[in-house]
């Protein structure tokens, strides 16, 4: 049995631009709802009137605490102060916000301020029987998974490969309570100093051929011609010879353990 806190942010739909649940934050809430928790505290720092917060409540939360602050303020200090008073065993967040600075720094800064460990890119958490530690599974590239053991308390960021979030239901979304706590937050000077403009896609860099080798002709060739392997050719070997040749080739490439 653990005490879980979930940090939720407001996302932005990539096409319509409307406020929505941030996808990995919704997955974090889904994971929290599946943990054997004695208490689940959902926290949001920002505008308590945002309609997207109701979508989180519609997933089955009774209440959501909003640390009310103006847009463009740094939410780390108020969040850390609030979490310190709760002292949860596990803090769950998405690994990247959607619609703000989107740097993925907030969980790290919160963990650093609280002085607890951080585990990135989590897809599953199993709390050990004693409740003192947890077995955590991380998603890696190429569909691989890595398991770790972490002592409580810790902060975990949830990877997009985690189980998808349940849909939001209308009734619970209406019934859920939003508790607004006004807080003082310092303005974010670094972000204010950056110049913001609408994003425009850049042409994709053509990365054919080895860097710095050959001119336009080589690039054209690499882009248009079918690649030819510099092949070994075995004509009519016995099945066992063929199997051995393939096996050795696979081992050499490193896809089979030696």
């Amino acid at each position, binding site marked *: 049995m653990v005490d879980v806190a979930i940090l939720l942010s407001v996302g*932005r*739909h*990539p096409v319509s*631009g409307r406020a929505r649940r941030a996808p990995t934050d919704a997955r974090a809430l889904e994971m929290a709802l599946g943990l054997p928790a004695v208490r689940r505290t959902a926290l949001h720092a920002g505008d308590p009137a945002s309609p997207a917060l109701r979508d989180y409540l519609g997933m089955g939360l009774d209440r959501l605490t909003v640390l009310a602050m103006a847009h463009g303020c740094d939410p780390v200090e108020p969040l850390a102060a609030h979490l310190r008073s709760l002292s949860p065993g596990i803090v769950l967040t998405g690994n990247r916000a959607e619609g703000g*600075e*989107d*740097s993925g*720094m907030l969980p*790290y*800064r919160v*963990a650093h301020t609280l002085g607890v*460990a*951080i585990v990135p*890119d989590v897809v599953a958490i199993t709390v050990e029987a004693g409740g003192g530690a947890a077995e955590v*599974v991380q998603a890696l590239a*190429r*569909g*691989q*998974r*890595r*398991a*770790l053991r*972490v002592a409580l308390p810790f902060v975990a960021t949830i990877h997009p490969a985690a189980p998808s979030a349940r849909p939001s239901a209308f009734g619970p979304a209406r019934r859920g309570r939003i508790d607004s706590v006004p807080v003082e937050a310092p303005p974010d000077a670094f972000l204010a100093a*950056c*110049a*913001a*403009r609408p*994003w*425009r896609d*850049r042409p994709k*860099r053509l990365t054919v051929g080895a*860097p*710095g*080798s*050959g*001119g336009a002709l*080589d690039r054209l060739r690499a882009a248009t011609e*079918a690649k*030819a*392997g*510099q*092949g*070994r*050719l*075995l*004509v*009519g*070997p016995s*099945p066992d010879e*063929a*199997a*051995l*040749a*393939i*096996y050795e*080739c*696979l081992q050499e*490439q490193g*896809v*089979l353990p030696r």
Partner: protein
Amino acid sequence: MSEQHPTARRRDPRAERAARTVRVEPRRRLVLSVDVVPQTGGRPRRDPRARRAEAIVQSVPRLRLDWTGKAVGASALPTVEGRGPRAASEPVLRVIDDPACLLFAVLDRPDGALSGHDRQVLAAARLLADAAGGAVVAVVPDGGEDLGALGADRVLPLPAAWADEYAPERRAAAVAAAIARWSPRHILFAESQDGGDLARRVAVACGERLFAGVESLSSARAARRAGGGATELGCAPPRLLSIAADAVAPLGAVRHEARRLDPPPEPDGVPALQGARRLPVDPDGVGLGEADFIVSAGNGVTDWDAFAALGRALGATRAGSRVVCDAGHLPRDRQVGASGTVVSARCYLAFGIAGAPQHLQGIGGVERVIAVNTDLHAAMIKRADLAIIADAQAVMPALVRLARERGHG
């Protein structure tokens, strides 16, 4: 030019005759000895062959001529990277002895080898360093690579074991200690999964902001994507940056000295993340575009039980050509090719696939292709790195047997 060459002068027979003339009256008399031939002349003679030879900038792989007269012959030209045969010549070693500042390029070395992304990070650091007169320090787990050829002036080796094991906390502590000791002007990371994690850990340890996932970089401005992908944030390159994949072109032929600095002290303290181990995953559950090792069946495969057993025995993701998916032997999301999935596997083992252009398009990014086919003239055989002319139905069970003998599956 041709004026210096004695034979390249235009001869003027009239002037020669006049010079040899000793007497005109009553009869013209000429001196016939050679040394009287005058060295003066009219217009310089044009030697088209020599002119052309001098205009040649490059002859392989393709002839290029420069008639502007500025070209001084191929041999005397400075090496321009990526131009024909001159690219093959060794670049000159550039030594930066007394740098104005240091820049850290913190490299990932995932799976014990430098990735393309790591090279791009070095190229980005080089770009900022050249603008500031600084030196690039590659901070990387010790390995065999020649980092000088990738643009590193200095190397700060971390323990080699950290490349394989999952030790983000110790890595971050070591990098933070090195930053405190050398106070570099910029610290660049790769915005990959592990590199991004390391960058954020280092940023909080130094108490600084990270400009994460830089998409475009020049010495005056760094820009990244924010606001759910809708806005671009730009500013002068801050101290800590992480570089997104394919945002910066890797360097061409360069040579720097890669002088080793003393490694930072090993951090002490017990890491909180412990007992990291890879979990076995179901290869068929992995998306085809992500899969690392694919065994693929074409119309030449009839024994589908053996094919399934082979996938299990080798731990490979199963896929097929369009014919196979059309026939319902494999689900549609397992189709490789132009109208299926473009795969990026390291290894592609193909049984009974002819290698239609639409199929070959799908395996353009594969590192190594092994093909088994009964037809010696199939296009797949030409593409393959190891081609075997044999019956797929006989080779598949033999390979399953061999893999089981060696203790797989």
